[in-house]
């Protein structure tokens, strides 16, 4: 082949206590969609940060079209033709699309000219976007388009995308992929970070797999099975969770016409949410982020109160009960945000065990805390859910995301809930840990508990849920058995693609 577009030689970067990248080398060619695969903590982020000039390598070198390339900062990287779309958008809700795009540019043209350019680029690449709209009103998919267009306006030679599909509906993913294919056809190279193996197999020409900061292999995704890639990422084979079908029991949780105003300006109002959850059943709730997931959890956990009859547990009205009263009755919850919601970051795991388990595990007596019992319970969670930590006195924030997630889920599962509500139970968790968490949920359901699993990971819901419903702008669709659903139908339940019709022009 010709000179690679970007060539990486032995990049190494260490942080205190951990080597994030250990002599990583690979090449990306023009017009190539190159996947960067790896578990959380494998070093993908550090690697792209070095390419994008956010982090300096300790050793190693890069070259761009044969010339040495060592960006001192992101604007140097952009000047060299490297652009990046981050997983978390850096957009201002109160500004228009065009204003947001202008903020990310070195020398933005006059606003009118910029708006025209945005229209032009969005049309060329099939990414419909009105430059005058307020960013706060956009869907997640549309926000991502703003970021992509911001990059495209700078005519990049290499586009880095960090987990771009995690916030998209299946239809939006299709639109994105056709855009990316157009780009590669024009000779733009794409470095695509993801852990969704099927996507990589449809989109990418080559893949580099990282494990513990090392390049453990490259492969051609189309010729490699998803299972082989997953095993290369994890470094060992692991068991996918197994679901033994069983008949659902009596109604455990019933929600009828739950409506709640939005908790804040950028929150979501719930509108007439109704659902029935039976013993031994897992009900999956899908949907794009920000469509009412947090709000449903808050209403069920008791953080927000409703009319008494709106929520019934085993037939008894519980809408006005606080979280601990609901816990006493067996309704437990695990929120999405680990740090600051499900757990207090500065507090030890023992204290965090006390946080939600005080009532059911009898960790207090007449108001006084039984620290010994709390520590024992924390130790049990650590042992049974394989939480990697020096001990129960470690602060929650010192744990990696996956380990803390295992702790948070384990803490609720071990309290033997009758009904468990989880939001994004495996978000940011590596494949092996995610499989363990899913298995724990399945086992819990097999013991007769009712589980409501809110997740943005459709594969996860299809894997573990008996029935599936979708949240869209605070409304919940009818629940349907997962076995009879196709991806297209799910996409439509999630509200379809935003602006999909235009995209086929």
């Amino acid at each position, binding site marked *: 082949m010709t000179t690679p577009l970007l060539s990486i030689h032995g990049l190494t970067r260490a942080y205190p206590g951990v080597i994030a990248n250990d002599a990583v080398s690979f090449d990306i060619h023009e017009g190539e969609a190159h996947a960067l695969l790896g578990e959380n903590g494998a070093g993908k982020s550090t690697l792209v940060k070095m390419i994008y000039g956010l982090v300096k390598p300790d050793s190693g070198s890069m070259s761009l079209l044969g010339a040495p390339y060592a960006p001192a900062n992101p604007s140097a990287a952009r000047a060299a033709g490297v652009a990046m779309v981050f997983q978390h958008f850096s957009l201002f809700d109160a500004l228009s699309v065009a204003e947001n795009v202008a903020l990310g540019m070195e020398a933005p043209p006059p606003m009118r000219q910029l708006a025209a350019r945005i229209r032009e680029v969005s049309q060329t690449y099939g990414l419909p976007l009105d430059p005058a709209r307020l960013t706060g009103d956009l869907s997640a998919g549309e926000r991502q388009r703003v970021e992509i267009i911001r990059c495209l306006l700078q005519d990049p030679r290499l586009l880095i995308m960090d987990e771009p599909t995690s916030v998209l509906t299946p239809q939006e993913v299709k639109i994105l992929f056709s855009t990316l294919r157009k780009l590669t056809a024009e000779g733009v190279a794409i470095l695509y970070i993801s852990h969704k193996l099927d996507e990589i197999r449809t989109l990418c020409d080559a893949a580099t797999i990282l494990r513990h900061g090392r390049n453990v292999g490259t492969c051609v995704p189309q010729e490699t099975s998803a299972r082989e890639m997953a095993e290369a990422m994890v470094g060992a084979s692991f068991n996918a969770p197994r679901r033994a079908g069983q008949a659902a029991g009596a109604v455990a949780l019933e929600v009828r016409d739950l409506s709640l105003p939005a908790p804040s300006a950028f929150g979501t109002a719930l509108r007439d949410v109704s659902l029935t959850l039976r013993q031994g059943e897992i009900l999956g709730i899908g949907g794009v982020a920000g469509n009412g997931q947090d709000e449903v959890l808050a209403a069920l956990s008791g953080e927000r109160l409703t009319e008494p009859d709106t929520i019934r547990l085993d037939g008894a009205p519980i809408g006005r009960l606080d979280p601990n009263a609901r816990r006493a009755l067996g309704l437990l919850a695990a929120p999405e945000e680990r740090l600051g919601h499900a757990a207090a970051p500065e507090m030890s795991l023992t204290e965090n065990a006390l946080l*939600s388990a005080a009532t059911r595990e009898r960790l207090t007596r007449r108001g006084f*805390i039984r620290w010994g019992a709390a520590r024992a319970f924390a130790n049990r969670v650590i042992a049974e859910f394989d939480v990697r930590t020096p001990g129960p006195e470690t602060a929650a924030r010192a744990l990696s995301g996956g380990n803390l997630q295992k702790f948070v889920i384990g803490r609720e599962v071990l309290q033997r809930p009758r009904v468990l509500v989880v939001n994004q139970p495996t978000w940011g968790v590596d494949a092996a840990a995610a499989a363990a968490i899913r298995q724990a949920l399945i086992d819990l359901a097999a013991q007769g508990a009712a589980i409501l699993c809110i997740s943005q990971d459709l594969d996860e819901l299809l894997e573990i849920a008996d029935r599936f419903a979708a949240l869209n702008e605070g409304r919940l669709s009818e629940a349907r058995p997962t076995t009879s659903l196709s991806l297209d139908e799910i996409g439509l339940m999630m509200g379809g693609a935003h602006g999909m019709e235009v995209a086929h022009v």
Partner: protein
Amino acid sequence: MLRLEPRPQPSRLWTLTTPPLAVLITMIAGGALFAALGKDPVEAIATIFWQPLFGEFSFYYRPQLLIKAAPLILIAIGLSLGFRAGIWNIGAEGQYIIGALAGAGVALAFYPYESALIFPLMVLAGALGGWAWAMIPALLKLRFGTNEILVSLMLVYVAEQLLAAMALGLMKNPEGRGFPGSRNLRQYDSAHNAELIAGTGMHWGVAAALIAVILAYILLSRHSLGFHIRLAGQAPRAARFAGVHPGRLVVFCLGTAGALAGLAGMFEVAGPAGQVSIDFNVGYGFTAIIVAFLGRLHPVGIALAGLLMALTYIGGEMAQSTMGLPAAAIQLFQGMLLFFLLAVDLLTNYRIRLRQREVA
């Protein structure tokens, strides 16, 4: 170049060493300040920190230490509960004044009747007075979402006006020949908060401060309410998830702080001060904020910080009289203490590193 790097976990070592380090830096910076004023810095620092404890007149100053430290500790303990929960009561000075007025009011109402019940009644009235004054910002916050910082602070000035009105009007000593100020409670046996052990400065307020320290310690380390207070301050969303009612915490924290400040005021007016006068309050309510933070919002730390602060008060007075240092210099010195503490506090959660050499 220096760079701050977040620690994965707060450093236990630095949590304990930052307060003494802050005191040390304050001594150095304060010494420089005194030198700039043309005084001998070593002598000034020695006058403030050494003379009151071990100097020639220490027999007089040592009891003063407890007398000054007790109200500071009592108020700071109450404040620390709120501060931990993220509830900022800045108006302890006002609650202190109202507690004193309520306590003195009970005593003056019974004068000259003698009974062993009067003093306990005064204690109760003092606590209730401070509690009620603190309930104003609490209820306004719950009902209308007002900011407790502003409301409690503004109420200090209202309380000061009330104090002046009482000293000049309702509570004025009828036998005082027209001078402002109430009867002297030290001359009224049933109401006098006398020394429990003569010559030590140990009065009921000191006992109350000690009890408050112990109870606060138990509350924060053993009781679920204390756990909820800490949780609400560190992670409000997690607190709601844990079933904490934010409104109840506001009422409890402001109420407790008010009651303790009221008690401090009552013990002061019935003992060391003796009477309700226009300038009865001397800023304990504000200094206690420094004490609370200097003591890391920990009951034992607050007890030590209260003693240290009392020492700077007494030593400062000595330095004023013997060395002619301006009063403002002493206040500056106390302010520095808080400033440096907050500054070195950074080391608990961050470590300083030299920036690594850039790699080409």
